[in-house]
């Protein structure tokens, strides 16, 4: 067990600056209007730095820098870009522990998770796209003996990326790695809830990236995000976040006729078929862990398995074992490597979750465990902690239909396979799902029948590069995490070439 010292205190392995400006054209630039906003740590609720409150003027300056860099960057060889991505990955690996503590402090998530998942995945993501871009090739189609259609991949140019607060570094890397590999310059806006950790990352890798290729503008959505997303100087907008904002970003994009990729909300079903309980063995234990996965990252994951569907024949026993498992989760100081559940990322998130506890109870859902704010006392008393919570109810209730984004699962039984699929698909969303069974036929059929982009089968919450991730229905457009993402950051250039010296004969 290790308890890391909080950044800014004695013994800390990583410290934040007291203030962050915008990172534009390879250097730090103060905001045009001179304003800053405070950045609290969810661990204690206390401010630890201030961050530039960007406006349209700052966005324009960042776009100037990106446009100045985009052409030269787009012409670099894929070997050169891949080398840079690999060097970024190496630098991150050398500083893994520091990055993990920095993200923990800013987001409130447990450091065991940033050490084991967020940062290692981010590192691997750069390496994956370094490899993918080297291996990518265009095509040559022989239309006829004289005519060849060549297809080349070309970068889009300057792209906008708007990053969520639930995985401030990993979600930025999911977008940066393919965009940079494909040869684009980026203007990135971090979430205002977690604006600083990406600057710590930049402090480690800035010397590896040509000036202007990655620019970071901080600020609020309405003041900095909107001028970026609605700019006619970006060739694409990539957004991860809430569904209404995704729709607004798509509306802006329609004004400029540019593509968007959107990774939006979810209400993912986690289905436990009766055969999981056929034996009390490793697999049964694993399925109970799978049930408890709703609390991972404090439920602040768009694919949080927030609806558990359990077959009626095993319902009482499986649920009782699941409750016990959840009650044994260790919630506490996120900087303690033994802590499994940390703090919600913001006070607003905390309040929203509590409001769902209220409506859940009013609708008649039964609280099996949790159901209130967690007071951890001491210097954590001001932090944003919520007890992992299990509701029992039915799929029509609002807590079964809305993305709560907290450590909250809503549980209901199902009768048979058809009933399970019906409940699973009775949702506005289609991002993730889980299927647990020992029967390969059930696993396959259920996986194909669920209308969601990612169906974890006898697993949950794995996010390796090279497995496409993205949503059906109102969960978004496009895929991340896979080489196909390169297409989302590239134009297709077709050269249609005639090798015949003869006139075509039309005129």
């Amino acid at each position: 067990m290790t308890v890391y010292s909080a950044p800014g205190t004695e013994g800390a392995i990583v410290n934040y600056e007291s203030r962050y400006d915008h990172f534009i054209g390879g250097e730090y630039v103060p905001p045009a209007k001179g304003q800053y906003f405070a950045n609290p740590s969810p661990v204690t609720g206390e401010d630890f730095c201030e961050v530039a409150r960007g406006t349209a003027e700052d966005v324009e300056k960042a776009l100037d820098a990106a446009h100045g860099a985009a052409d030269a960057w787009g012409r670099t060889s894929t070997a050169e870009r891949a080398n840079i991505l690999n060097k970024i990955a190496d630098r991150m690996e050398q500083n893994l522990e520091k990055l993990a503590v920095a993200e923990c402090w800013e987001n409130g998530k447990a450091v065991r998770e940033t050490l084991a998942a967020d940062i290692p995945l981010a590192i691997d993501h750069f390496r994956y796209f370094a490899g993918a871009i080297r291996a990518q090739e265009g095509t040559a189609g022989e239309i006829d003996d004289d005519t060849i259609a060549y297809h080349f991949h070309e970068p889009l140019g300057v792209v906008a990326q708007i990053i969520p607060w639930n995985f401030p570094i990993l979600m930025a890397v999911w977008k940066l790695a393919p965009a940079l590999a494909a040869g684009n310059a980026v203007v990135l806006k971090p979430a205002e809830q977690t604006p600083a950790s990406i600057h710590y990352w930049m402090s480690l890798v800035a010397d590896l990236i040509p000036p202007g290729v990655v620019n970071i503008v901080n600020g609020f959505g309405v003041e900095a995000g909107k001028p970026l997303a609605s700019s006619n100087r970006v060739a694409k907008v990539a957004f991860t976040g809430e569904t209404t904002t995704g729709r607004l970003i798509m509306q802006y994009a329609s004004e400029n006729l540019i593509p968007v990729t959107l990774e939006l909300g979810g209400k993912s079903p986690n289905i436990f078929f009766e055969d999981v309980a056929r034996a009390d063995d490793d697999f049964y234990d694993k399925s109970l862990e799978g049930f408890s996965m709703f609390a991972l990252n404090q439920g602040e994951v768009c694919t949080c398995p927030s609806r558990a569907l359990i077959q009626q024949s095993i319902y009482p026993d499986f649920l009782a074992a699941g409750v016990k498992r959840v009650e044994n989760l260790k919630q506490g100081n996120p900087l303690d490597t033994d802590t499994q559940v940390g703090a919600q990322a913001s006070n607003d998130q905390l309040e929203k979750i509590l409001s769902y506890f209220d409506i859940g109870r009013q609708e008649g859902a039964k609280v099996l465990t949790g159901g209130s704010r967690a007071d951890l006392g001491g210097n954590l008393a001001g932090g944003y902690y919520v007890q992992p919570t299990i509701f029992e109810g039915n799929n029509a209730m609002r807590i079964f239909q809305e993305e709560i984004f907290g450590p909250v699962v809503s549980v209901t039984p199902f009768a048979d396979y058809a009933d399970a699929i019906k409940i699973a698909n009775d949702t506005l969303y289609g991002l993730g799902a889980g299927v647990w069974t020992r029967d390969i036929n059930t696993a396959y059929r259920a996986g194909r029948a669920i209308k969601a982009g990612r169906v974890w089968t006898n697993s949950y919450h794995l996010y390796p590069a090279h497995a496409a991730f993205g949503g059906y229905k109102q969960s978004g457009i496009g895929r991340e995490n896979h080489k196909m993402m390169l297409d989302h950051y590239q134009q297709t250039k077709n050269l249609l070439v005639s090798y015949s010296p003869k006139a075509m004969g039309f005129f």
Partner: protein
Amino acid sequence: MCYLEGEFRTGQSDVLLESLKIDGVDEPITFWMSASQFELWKHTHLTVDVVPGRGSGFSLEAPEGVRFLIRSRLLSEQELAELS
């Protein structure tokens, strides 16, 4: 989310729930919801509360140090009868 009137395009897949009259604001504030969401929410009474904090997305109040928070309660049988 709260946007300037006209900022967010609403259409056939949305429902106008109410035009709210706010003291000190000349124009009514229209309150919209997507029709699919309304189907799931229509048995509840909504209060748009304002609490200290930081809004998110592109919502107008975010820089002001406050945020909107929806509080919900079940509609009474009498209210449901009036609305049906």
